[in-house]
């Protein structure tokens, strides 16, 4: 397929310049807020009060980060975020890949039935209140670590993704293993899993980002097992509590009462892992979502 690119001898038109300006606008509007947050987090808090619009720290300091990691008791939430990301991703990937393999086996007696059961849940769900009651009342999972792992254990979309991948590779390897007397579990572990590395990487990365970013489950079910996201939310809320909607001076009300610099430092700590894994995400996700769009 020929790509739309600038060939030798082609004229650069006015429209090309307009495009360049539009793209620069997109880049700046996307990046600027993050740079701004980074600069504030590295800037002296009192100096920040003067004017918040800058991307190079005026009075450099690491005090905000020191505060975040010492006084604010953020160590536990930080470790909790890491723990749920690691445990949640590993268990999620293993379980999803297992189901995907079984559902790729057309000779499995319950293949059609189980596939249907999984697919239906993509289109209808019980909604927030029944799920909340199931988890907090029926299963009594509030403030237990398992609430971060079990309810979202297997993703149906990911099952389809991995299954299509397995179906795409030849099954002769499986047959070969069968002759050697390997059982289905061994075939999955020793043959299917290594073949599926690229798609497993995609699912794992998406899963890890989802776990790290997750906020609602902490808010709804496990406020005692606070994560970084929830801490950031609390620090934003602490500014809100003091708000009186009938306050005479409305400007005073929305101006953040909380230490902005500390909030920005936490924002950076919570964003950093995403930016670090971003190049890997980049590498895998485009293939991932286009595959999903075609297959589903």
């Amino acid at each position: 397929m020929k790509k739309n690119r600038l060939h030798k001898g082609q004229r650069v038109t006015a429209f090309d310049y307009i495009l360049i300006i539009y793209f620069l606008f997109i880049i700046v509007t996307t990046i600027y807020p993050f740079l701004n947050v980074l600069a504030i987090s590295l800037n002296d808090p009192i100096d920040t009060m003067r004017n918040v619009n800058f991307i190079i720290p005026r009075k450099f300091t690491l005090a905000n980060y020191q505060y975040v990691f010492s006084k604010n008791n953020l160590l536990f939430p930080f470790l909790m975020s890491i723990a749920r990301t690691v445990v949640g991703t590993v268990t999620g990937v293993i379980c999803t890949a297992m189901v995907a393999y079984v559902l790729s086996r057309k000779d499995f007696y319950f293949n059609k039935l189980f596939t249907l059961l999984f697919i239906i849940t993509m289109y209808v769900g019980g909604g927030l209140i029944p799920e909340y009651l199931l988890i907090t009342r029926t299963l009594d999972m509030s403030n237990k670590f398992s609430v971060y792992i079990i309810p979202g254990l297997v993703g149906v979309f990911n099952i389809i993704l991995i299954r299509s991948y397995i179906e795409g590779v030849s099954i002769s390897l499986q047959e070969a293993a069968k002759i050697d007397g390997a059982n289905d579990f061994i075939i999955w572990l020793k043959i299917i899993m290594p073949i599926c590395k690229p798609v497993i990487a995609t699912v794992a990365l998406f899963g890890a980002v989802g776990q790290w970013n997750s906020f609602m489950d902490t808010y709804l079910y496990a406020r005692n097992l606070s994560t970084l996201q929830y801490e950031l939310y609390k620090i934003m809320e602490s500014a809100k509590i003091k708000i009186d909607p009938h306050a005479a001076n409305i400007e005073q009300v929305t101006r953040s009462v909380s230490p902005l610099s500390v909030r920005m430092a936490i924002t950076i700590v919570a964003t950093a892992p995403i930016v670090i894994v971003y190049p890997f995400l980049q590498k895998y996700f485009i293939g991932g979502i286009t595959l999903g769009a075609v297959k589903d």
Partner: protein
Amino acid sequence: MKAKTKNEENYVKQKFSWKLMWKQRYLLCMSVPFVIWLIIFRYLPLWGWTMAFQDVKPKSFGLSIWEREFVGFANFAKAFSDHMFFPTMINTLCTSFLGLVLGTVSAIFFALMLNEMRFLKFKKVTQTISYLPHFVSWVIIASIAKMFLNDGGVLDTIFNTKLHLMSSNSPLFWVVVTAVNVWKEVGWDAIIYLSALAGIDQGLYEAAKVDGANRFQRMWHISLPGIKTTVTVIMIMSIGGILNVGMERQMLLSNAIVKDHAMVLSWFAYTRGIGNNDYGFGTAIGMFQSVVGIILLLIANKIAGLLGERKLI
């Protein structure tokens, strides 16, 4: 499930036998636990819809379904006549509609521009940067957005005026939420359109060029019609979710002043259902959202079919 492989035909439909079950014992062990998981976490909540027709309070939740008091459609009647329901519905529809229109238009526009970009390195860099915010959580986005939009925030400083983006109890908040959402998702949403654009036969462009069509004409007459199917499919799916404005985003971005215009159905269901311990009431609103969603999806699908577009279902 359209994806069917050739292998499938090789397997004859098998009859149930214990011998077969024993032969497939590993496959059973590897799937049955997850089917049980599925039934508990995905199907039991559906069964919970029965609560919409019952008077369920924390006290009566422990009772079995037959012991609870059935109230018919009373929960729905109570929800629709609630003084908060109408404003909440308006907020939901307006936020959703604005998001659908502005989100789709800006994503298509961005994809078209990417497709037109002839400096490939620059195109790649821009695209890579554009979907970074998609991977950042709403809490972080809200934290950043508030610093920008609050009174005395960055935007006020840049324009050296008071924009009152987060401090006016007016429909302005719908626009603010939509703008933040577009900022976060435009790069990501453009991917699907961009891959549709990549699928257009390049010969069409060459032919148009020979016929003397300029770049705008080629975009209008080849690119846009070329992605019409993709746009239709995405529209149909979005229309089904028009009442499902997530409460996470609304809750995180709003404050006490703008809350009247931030309240959406799912949040309303939560505050009444869980906050006020009226489980039946909350479930009724949730069920209303789902049922309306399915009906809208079917209608949109039908209309797309009548207009000669590819149908989704």
